[in-house]
């Protein structure tokens, strides 16, 4: 009887839990900081004053915020350490220095080869895994649409000047469109040098913000300066944005 009882416990865990990897009792843990830097042409972005060039137009950035989620560190042996999903939602806000340092706690000390993270909120996991605890943070950073229960993954605004417009507003608010369109993206960055964790660790991750306009797709503000719930352009913005990241690690 006792054995059967145990069997059920085991079945229960195996059947329902996906992250039941046994941790060796000797495993040590540490803290890792992801240091996000938003740059254009190798320089840190300066909001509201610096003028940048996109093809035939110039622009200033007023707001630059995005959601980082579902962080996974990939070890040398291919093993993945997924940061607890409920704790794994962050807003990187260019206005707020502290928001650019994402501190991950209790990371197993071992050698890592790569990092993977999400841009936005994974649609298939919206209601689950504690994501709703992210609502107040998203709300404070204007990363929620008022008429929809969805999140704004990328909030990018400013002014631009082109052949026909002078100091005109632009706004990209990109998220998923209910069940109709999933704009969540995952980014995997391989480390150039194996990350051997010790007691204090930092991984620098850079977003080349100009790639939002120019990467897989070429976007012109003069052509369209307001991209929000737009099934044609919003996936292009997210595709470009997901290609903007690199790491110096």
């Amino acid at each position, binding site marked *: *009887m006792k054995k*059967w*009882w145990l069997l*059920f*416990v085991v*079945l*229960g865990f195996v*059947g*329902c839990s996906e992250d039941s990897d046994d941790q060796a009792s000797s495993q040590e843990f540490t803290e890792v900081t992801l240091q996000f830097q938003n740059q254009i042409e190798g320089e840190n972005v300066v909001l509201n004053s610096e003028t940048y060039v996109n093809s035939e137009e110039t622009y200033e950035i007023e707001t630059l915020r995005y959601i980082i989620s579902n962080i996974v560190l990939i070890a040398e042996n291919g093993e993945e350490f997924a940061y607890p999903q*409920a704790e794994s939602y962050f807003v990187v806000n260019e206005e707020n220095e502290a928001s650019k340092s994402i501190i991950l706690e209790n990371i197993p000390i071992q050698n890592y080869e790569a990092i993977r993270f999400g841009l936005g909120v994974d*649609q298939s996991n*919206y*209601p*689950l*895994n*504690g*994501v*709703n*605890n*992210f*609502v*107040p943070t998203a*709300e*404070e950073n204007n990363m*929620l649409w*008022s*008429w*929809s*229960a*969805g999140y704004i993954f990328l909030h990018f605004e400013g002014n631009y000047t082109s052949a026909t417009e002078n100091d005109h507003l632009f706004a990209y608010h990109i998220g998923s*469109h*209910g*069940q*109709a*369109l999933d704009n969540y993206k995952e980014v995997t960055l391989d480390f150039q040098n194996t990350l051997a964790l010790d007691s204090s660790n930092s991984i620098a991750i850079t977003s080349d913000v100009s790639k939002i306009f120019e990467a897989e797709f070429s976007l012109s503000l003069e052509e369209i300066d307001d991209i*929000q*719930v*737009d*099934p044609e352009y*919003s996936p292009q913005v997210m595709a470009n944005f997901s290609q903007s990241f690199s790491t110096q690690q």
Partner: protein
Amino acid sequence: MRLSFFLLLSLFLVSCSEEDVNSGYEAIVENDTLSIEIPDYFPEVTYNFEANPPTEKGFELGKKLFYDGKLSSDGVVSCGFCHIQDFSFTHHTHIVSHGVNGALGTRNAQPLQNMIFMNEFTWDGAAESLDAQPIIPITAEVEMNESFSNIIDKLQADEEYPQLFAEAFENGEVNTDNMLKAISQFLVMMVSADSKYDKILKNEGSQFTAEEEAGKVLFDQKCATCHAGVLFTDQSCRNNGLPIDPEYDDEGRSRVTGLQADKYKFKVPSLRNIQITYPYMHDGRFQTLAQVLDHYDSGMVVTENLDPVFQQNENLGISLTEDEKQKIIAFLETLTDDNFLLDDRFAEF
């Protein structure tokens, strides 16, 4: 020992199997308490009970939150303000929703019932999950106009809530996730499946009158394409030919998808308890079912994306005689579920 064994077994089944939820009257026995009776002719459950199983304490907490004005910026407008149980959780005298400080919304409060079978929520599908839906009315300026940070502060400072959260959830925290889970635990229990129509399907001795029976035949011919199945909705969004109200110029589902092809489409509502959920349509423009049927018979206009189902004959819409309308209404009245409307479990007081 034997008891523990059974408890584990049932936990295991509940947490890993979703098929069992629908078989006959089999109860959904959650971690310790609440079960839901679902007739076997109902569709598959869409709600993820594994992630948020309703418990007695969670339900009670959800109910308190649902009826608490603290969730709004003026401390008055609760969820239950617009969703009144007697009217299957709609509001009769309000054509569109009313919010804080007398603000007016643009849409009519939808009934709350059978949500565990739905794929998307709100008139345009702007909420993909029941757990996220309350974010919309709570934060909307013209509804409850409150931020979650403020609400959590208020709940944490409250004399009762911290204890109630501690009892309802394993981690005991007063946070957004638990708050929305508790509200869902209250909402998922709202299954309306005991109308006269149901009693007939269940062979409980009820019978349609001749008029109701004739109405059912007409309904199946003329309405059931969209109002399909036992929930009386195929859950699609469609344009049903309402003249555009310039006051709102509500574009419907295209606001969610950005697709021109979704302009003026709204979710086909369930017709359960339809007799008492007036006013009708997304903007509450019709007060009676007779007006609704008049619209389908002779009131439609051709606007962008008018559903092809209404354009099959030379005449727009669904032609109905006065006698046919009366019979259809008689049938629709058999969908009223008094046991649900009077169910003490959901009552504010």
